[in-house]
């Protein structure tokens, strides 16, 4: 199946492993990702913070180009881009005069026929369509499914149905053999756009997320947003400095977890690009204890403790 694809700027730079892993799993899932020709940046937080009209025009150009290319659906893997595109589409649908005005600004016809699709939307369709049968190496780890902001909010635009306790990623994770944990920070904000201009704020907010996931026994955090990944992975040193706890749990994109389960190579999925190495010491420790300690270590699950 052909699907329109808008990678967004992060996926060309600091989050290129998200792009690589999506490209790697697409053929296995029967998907052909067709990039929007000559796409531009969505404007992100900067545009909507400083200039409302620009915050509509930049996403509108992307949507207009997607329309021109004949895409009915446009896959937008970055949650921040996703919300910019979805809210532009909504505002221009409700305001005909504004639609005409923005169409003139971008010098392209814009009708709003192309729909935007999140990675969760797309992968869930695949999951319900027999992803389980293609799993070659179940991802047998405890995972904290982290949604952050824009996969659940604003509720009217978001791909997830339950705003405060979404379950879409959990369903995906179960389909590939993982065990999602129950935890309290799955829809909390990581600090997102303040990663450069206010790093201490980000270290605090992301630190709370990491602490809860670790304390509840997660072996990995699974994300579907480049900003969440950057703050939890690349900013780990700042988090550790602020919180004084040296957490080693890795942060994986949902597409990387699915790729691993499909039996794809780590390198093809870009795991080597992470700042926090993708290793599972808890599982190793558990195995070692089970093997080494004999009959007394029958409480296999209880041994999944993490060193502080």
């Amino acid at each position, binding site marked *: 199946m052909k699907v329109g694809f808008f990678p967004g700027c992060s996926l060309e730079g600091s989050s290129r492993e998200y792009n690589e892993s999506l490209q790697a799993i697409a053929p296995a899932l029967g998907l052909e990702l067709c990039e929007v020709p000559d796409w531009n940046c969505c404007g992100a937080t900067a545009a909507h913070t400083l200039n409302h009209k620009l915050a509509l025009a930049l996403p509108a150009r992307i949507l207009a180009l997607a329309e021109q290319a004949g895409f009915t659906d446009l896959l937008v893997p970055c949650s921040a881009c996703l919300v910019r595109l979805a809210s532009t589409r909504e505002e221009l649908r409700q305001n005909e005069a504004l639609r005409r005005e923005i169409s003139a600004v971008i010098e392209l016809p814009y009708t709003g026929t192309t729909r935007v699709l999140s990675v969760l939307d797309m992968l869930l369709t695949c999951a319900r369509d027999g992803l389980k049968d293609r799993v070659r190496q179940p991802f047998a780890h405890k995972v904290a499914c982290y949604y952050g*902001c824009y996969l659940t909010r604003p509720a009217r635009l978001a791909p997830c149905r339950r705003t405060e306790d979404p379950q879409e990623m959990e369903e995906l994770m179960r389909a590939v053999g993982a065990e999602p944990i129950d935890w309290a920070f799955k829809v909390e*904000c990581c600090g997102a756009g303040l990663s450069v201009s206010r790093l201490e704020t980000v270290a605090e907010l992301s630190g709370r997320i990491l602490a809860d996931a670790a304390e509840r026994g997660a072996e990995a955090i699974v994300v579907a947003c480049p900003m969440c990944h950057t703050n939890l992975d690349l900013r780990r040193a700042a988090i550790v400095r602020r919180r004084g706890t040296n957490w080693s749990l890795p942060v994986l994109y949902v597409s990387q977890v699915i790729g691993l389960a499909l039996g794809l190579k780590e390198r093809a999925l870009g795991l080597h690009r992470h700042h926090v190495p993708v290793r599972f010491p808890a599982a190793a420790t558990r195995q070692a204890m089970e093997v080494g300690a004999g009959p007394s270590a029958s409480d296999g699950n209880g041994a999944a403790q993490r060193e502080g």
Partner: protein
Amino acid sequence: MSHPLPSTQAPATLADRVAQATGESVFRCYQCGKCAAGCPLAAEMDYEPNQILRLLQLSLPGMEEEVLGSLAIWLCLTCETCAARCPQEVDLPRIMDYLRQESLRTGQAHPKAKDILAFHQAFLESIRKNGRLHEVGLISSYKLKTGHLLQDVGVAPKLLVRGKLSLLPHGIADRGQIARIFDKCANTPTTKEKGAAQ
């Protein structure tokens, strides 16, 4: 400057202008405080989100300046938690966007918002030039604007080793069109550099 005497035709309050620009009425808020309770940055704000709305509701002399000069409006991350939980369905993030733009337009941005503002401006300049964000260019330009020259110098080599830094921008073909879009949207001063000068 003295405050003008009340006239028969009261000038539009900031709350009126918010309503006109965003369609949101601040008077729907009944101060339950759910927005502040869920806001990840409320603790760092000078006014909590519901207090911003209260200042707008009252609009007594000096209050509008307090709002436009607050740090709170710049700390807001647009995480949308407040809007998701508001029993009155006030779209506070949308209001915050408008307040930031007004704050900038009227030159009242809080001095401590300087870095945040510099980042947003560097971001937009990068897009204007290349059509897409060039992360290296963004960070260099941010450093020059803020003087934080040594920030994140440790991060760059890590990114480089992992193949995540592209030294040259991925420019798009139709950069002229992007520049024209910026020009046509320029009625709100997006690049008003000195807006936050102390």
